[in-house]
């Protein structure tokens, strides 16, 4: 309760302070924000349903959309190597209950 109220009061105070100042609109890194958000979300959606290998692949491929310079061959290679590697480390070596690809490994 007290914390919630304090947050609101501080929020109003900061808002008022901001109102009184001449604002500089911060430059917005929109593309990376969206790409990283989408990449991470696809990981969340895929990991339990399909397995760690597709989840990591999706994360890297979608996440890479954020960069200005794109090099698809190397990105695909990176996704491939990293997904296999994380599967090996987590489900084979550390024996965590993660499947590589559901139904296959």
């Amino acid at each position, binding site marked *: 309760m007290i914390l919630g109220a304090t947050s609101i009061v501080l929020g109003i105070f900061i808002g008022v302070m901001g109102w009184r100042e001449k604002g500089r609109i911060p430059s917005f890194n929109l593309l990376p924000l969206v790409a*990283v*958000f989408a990449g991470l979300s696809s990981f969340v959606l895929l990991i339990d349903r399909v397995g760690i290998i597709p989840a990591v692949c999706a994360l890297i491929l979608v996440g890479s959309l954020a960069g200005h310079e794109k090099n698809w061959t190397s990105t695909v290679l990176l996704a491939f190597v990293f997904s296999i590697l994380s599967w090996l480390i987590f489900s084979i070596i550390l024996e965590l209950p993660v499947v590589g690809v559901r139904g296959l490994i």
Partner: protein
Amino acid sequence: MDLFTIGFPVALTLINVAYCFLGVFLGTFVGVLPGISGLTAVALLLPLSYHLDPTTAIIMLGGLYYGAEYGGSTASILLNLPGTASNAVTCLDGYPMARQGRAGPALFITSVASFIGAAIGTVLVMFLAPLLAKFALSFHSAEYFSAMLLGLVAAGTVGQGRRIKSVAMVVLGMTLGMIGIDTNTGVFRYTYGIANLYDGFPIVILAMGFFGVTEVINSINRIKFVAEVGDVSLRSLMPTAEDFRRITKPMMRGAAVGSFFGPLPGTGPTIASFIAYAVEKKCHKDEDRFGKGAVEGIAAPETANNAAVQTSFIPTLTLGIPGSATMAVMLGALLVHGIQPGPKLIVEQPELFWGVIASFWIGNIFLLILNIPFIGLWVRILKIPYKFLYPCILCMICIGVYSLNNSAFDVGMVIIFGVFGYLLKLMDFEPAPMLIGFILGPMVEQNFRRSMVITHGDFWALFERPITATFLILTLVLLVWMIYGSLRESR
């Protein structure tokens, strides 16, 4: 000396030396790379540390933290881009030195200065921590409550940026820390009926979101380097005798500044390095040399930030009160293992305390070797393009968080915090005070309730205890100073 009888035998076991090396190696690695801070690295390896023995875990995470301070100066000097925030000052004189073709000596001096700072800081930890612990043995919940309250308020008022925004972040952190079942009454707080939130959530999730994901989003397409780094040969490293003569005193002053600000709540290596630079500038008559490649200007702040990193372990290990966000995360790591750091830690778990301190010596010697003969390796690492790096970081965040509880919900929370953290960062809200609020908030509450039980709900009885009263008055002074300051700012 307990250091030699208890500490080194623990720290010198094969597994601890190996993890110490892993910690400092990865620490230097992330320190060198702009766009990943030491805190992010600590958060990234936190899930791994859950599988380790607590002593080994702190040895590794500690190594990451101080290792990052060594590595951070490399990018400052060569690229004018600080590897971590506390190396930002080093850009001022380090980059001009590199432009004058003296990159080698600059790198050498920063490594030596870092080592001296760390050594002085570690000596202080060895002597001050047991003293402080002895003093703190008489602490009851009232004293803890007031000391932690002071820490909370200091976290909000002393840091960089707008004070009121830091205070708002501390409050936000405390609110997030309240999530879950209240241990005293069993009431669900801020859970909104979501079963996954009933137990609250670990600090890793918060740190990964606000530091890991936020930093990645913030750095993509902003960090461009690659071609401009030249190779640094071993022969070019040696500073002149004149340089050595000049840096001795600045290093001592830097160590003093760093050791002072390290253990204070709310301050840390970044503030220490900025103040050390300012002090150094005042100490020289020919002030205008600074900013144009003065060796004093890199030696003092580099000593200060390392001294501050080592001494910041003092309040965390002896009182259980973290002074900085990184220490808050490390405290979280200890709590997971069921260890509540406090004044009894040195007596009850001497292996942990002295083992960690002994590992500081081992780790810093590793770092000296890694950073001087092997400097070429780190310079080459600067050439890894960020576009390959960040997908890997994202990957480590996801899998690390997922592996905690095998819960995709946790990763989802990291995403929300990451996006939210990025929006906050755009509006200049610093996330560090929030982490301190997150850890300290529930602890303050618990100690407050305990002392209220003892005094039968009489708040003013707290002022009858001299130590508690002192802390509370200090807290009040800080608050008044903060309110006065922000009123003046807004005018």
